[in-house]
């Protein structure tokens, strides 16, 4: 993946959450509603995003309506970094 944010997210999800290093995740593959990331791993993902990109993701935002694929999560991170 060209986008460094997406690449970092993809690597974290495939290595730490799915435990399948090197697994490719396409930018529009559904993450939450498909059950790929469960509610527990979602909190871990939020903590990773907060530590790595220094943006806050609120507890109320950990759901498929806020982001459901890599594209949407990366866009959310970008928009908060610009602020």
């Amino acid at each position, binding site marked *: 993946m060209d986008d460094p944010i997406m690449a970092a997210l993809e690597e974290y999800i495939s290595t730490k959450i799915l435990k399948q290093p090197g697994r490719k995740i396409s930018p529009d593959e559904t993450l939450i509603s498909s059950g790929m990331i*469960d509610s*527990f791993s*979602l909190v871990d993902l*939020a903590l990773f995003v907060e530590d790595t990109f220094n943006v806050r993701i609120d*507890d109320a935002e*950990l759901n498929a309506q806020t982001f459901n694929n890599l594209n949407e999560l990366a866009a959310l991170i970008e928009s908060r970094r610009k602020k």
Partner: protein
Amino acid sequence: MTILQIALLVILAIIIGQIPRGRQLGMLAISTFAIFWLQPSEPFVTLLFWLPVATLAITLLCWALTSSPESRVWGKNWSAAAILVSITLLMDLNRVFKFEQIYTSRTPILELALAVVFGLAVITMLIIRWQKGSHFFQAAALAAIILIFVIIKTPGLIHMVSGYLVNLRGADPADKTTPLTWLGYSYIAFRLLHTIRDKQSGRLPPLTIAEYFDYAIFFPSFTAGPIDRVERFVKELKAPLPLANDDWVDSGTRLLVGMFKKFVVADLLAFISLSNVLVTQVKSAGWMWVFLYAYAFQIYFDFSGYTDIAIGMGRLMGIRLPENFNAPYLKSNLTQFWNSWHMSLTQWFRTYYFNPITRAMRSAKRPLPVWVIIFITQISTFVLIGLWHGVTAGFAIWGLWHGVGLFVQNRWSEFIRTRVPVWAQTQTSQKVLGALGVFLTFNYVALGWLFFNLADPAIAWLAMKKLFGVL
């Protein structure tokens, strides 16, 4: 709600959706009226008046506690306050008008209603003026809302309270068998808790009385959800979605489908669905499965039908309420089931319970092993979701059933993730495994309903044994 009540509310929703100005106040007026109108009869009749007043009072006090300086100015709120007071007093004055077919005429004397309204206005102003104590009052309000919740949801406690009220009024002792029902409290309470928690964390937008009340007691969703989020709701309240031709068709379809699910499918299934009597009388395991499946579909069609009606009605007024169900019985594992069953309630529990405690446990200096954290958080979240339906052993066991199921599923997925055999990776095997998953998930959920539906866990256990031919 009856078909007639729904029909009238739909007409009112259509009218509100068409008026160019004053929609917020229109909704407030109808919602306030609906709270009185829909409240079921009580151990003693004046509760028909006082319980709705209590709902409005709690909502008003929570508004005062969470309001911001810019939203609490008199100019923005006097019209909403006037509507709340006038409708409350008009309902009380039915003792004079005597429109018995609409509302009881045995309401308290006007002086008493006026005194309560005046008292509430004074308390509201004191809360607004005394901002120094707001942190303390917000915490106290959280505790009070939860305490009331526990009292009205615990059968022993609510019987005690009802009995006490009946004695107090010297009413007919035969009435003591009817415990008090506070219509809509479970949903309204969770909306209010959400606004107070968001106020505490600084996320709550400024809200006027009309906006706050329209959110908390919105008439399409006040009896059976969904539990929306206030910032989302108010965005559409301020700029209602336009109603194009397609939206009329969508809303109409949603309403008709909802009514069909609720009043035809669910009500027919009710004849053959699981009950204490059927469980004790029936001997054949086959019939037990029929009753169990009938209940599983009855509760789905009943509840999702209500949600369809609420969503259809909301859309007529330019508001898109959140979905509560997404084909839950077609999901291939329990995690997905809970991502698509009563979604707005599970999302609430994730936001205000599961996520914060998981976050805290994962960020601890010496974090516990992952499986221990998952065990604690999943089980406690689902026991709480169970108890939200009622503080009884049956609901607690139902919650435990799902908490344990999710924990086992989580551990199994973790184990199998790196060990998927080659034969299971083909498209055909994936399809077969998916179908097997749907079958297992549905049956696990259906068996869980035993504890949910049969009040006594001993009867639920008897049913379980009969289902598997042990008895």
